[in-house]
């Protein structure tokens, strides 16, 4: 006999059972069979410890299965760790909204997001909002969007301007801090305050991502213990060199991946 995980539950099987035989026993209508994170042919011989998810495409699953099925494509073990994590995101603009969506999609357990701003038309060239959200507070619109993507994570929002005084209170109890502001003085303020008040909590900040210079000039750098800086460090947003979705998304992707690596105990760089 072998033991596998079938749709997140332990199951004992005869040695020699194939994936197709399991499907016929348990879920004959399933047409997507995923083993250890990868779609797998029906003839596959199941092995001890395999993690199997079976999905019938188009069928809305039971609520209690939904989270397991959403995470079926993850590297096994990743979801278990990050679903218990909490990430703070200061700023819900070009960087913050993109980072929040990436982290929601992979199932980070809790996001704490702060921004004082409203959605405006010019935001739509890079920020993860929709035309029909113009005029809404960014944190409200973003929470809506995130919950449509992943209803199973906890999202706490603050429609407020962050300063030295409220930063430690708003972002207490987080595993990683993300700096996603737009103004350089705010970036410096958050970085200085965080490094002084929460030196044991890693910070992923960003500087320099305007325009459409080569993608490979955006990098992640380790500046000091628990302080990582993403960007090209020089391309400021200004007339003639605006912020645009492709390059901002690259920076946001770097930040989100740095967060993921930190949550999994790896150095981002």
């Amino acid at each position, binding site marked *: 006999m072998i033991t596998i995980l079938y749709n997140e539950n332990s199951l004992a099987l005869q040695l020699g059972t194939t994936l197709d035989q399991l499907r016929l026993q348990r879920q004959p209508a399933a047409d997507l069979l995923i083993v250890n994170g990868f779609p797998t042919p029906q003839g596959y011989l199941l092995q001890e410890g395999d993690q199997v998810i079976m999905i019938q495409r188009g069928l809305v699953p039971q609520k209690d299965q939904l989270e397991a099925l959403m995470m079926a494509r993850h590297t096994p073990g990743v979801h278990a760790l990050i679903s218990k994590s909490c990430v703070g995101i200061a700023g819900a603009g070009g960087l913050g909204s993109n980072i929040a969506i990436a982290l929601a999609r992979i199932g980070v357990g809790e996001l704490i997001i702060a921004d004082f701003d409203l959605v405006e038309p010019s935001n739509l060239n890079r920020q993860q909002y929709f035309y029909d959200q113009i005029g809404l507070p960014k944190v409200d619109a973003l929470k809506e969007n995130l919950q449509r993507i992943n209803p199973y994570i906890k999202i706490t929002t603050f429609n407020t301007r962050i300063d030295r005084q409220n930063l430690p209170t708003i972002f207490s109890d987080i595993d990683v801090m993300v700096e996603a502001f737009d103004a*350089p*003085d705010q970036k410096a303020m958050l970085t*200085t305050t965080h490094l002084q008040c929460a030196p044991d909590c890693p910070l992923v900040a960003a500087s320099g991502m305007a325009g459409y210079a080569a993608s490979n000039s955006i990098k992640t750098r380790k500046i*000091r213990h628990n302080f990582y800086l993403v960007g090209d460090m020089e391309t*400021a947003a200004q007339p003639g060199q605006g*912020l645009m979705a492709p390059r901002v998304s690259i920076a946001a992707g770097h930040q989100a991946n740095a967060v993921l690596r930190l949550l999994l105990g790896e150095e981002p760089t």
Partner: protein
Amino acid sequence: MKIELNGNPQEINDNSTIEELLEQLDLQIDRVVLELNHNILNASESRTTALCEGDKLEIIEFVGGG
């Protein structure tokens, strides 16, 4: 006097404050994060701290956009 600035030797005026040094380097004090001898300086420390021979100063300058 000599200090180490971002890892490189730098000759500066005796009794320079950090604020004066930033002005010489054309950096805005509210856009930088400063680490002096491995300690992060807050805003008021940045304005008042005088540099000494052999100090190790790291400056990170932020640019706008995000």
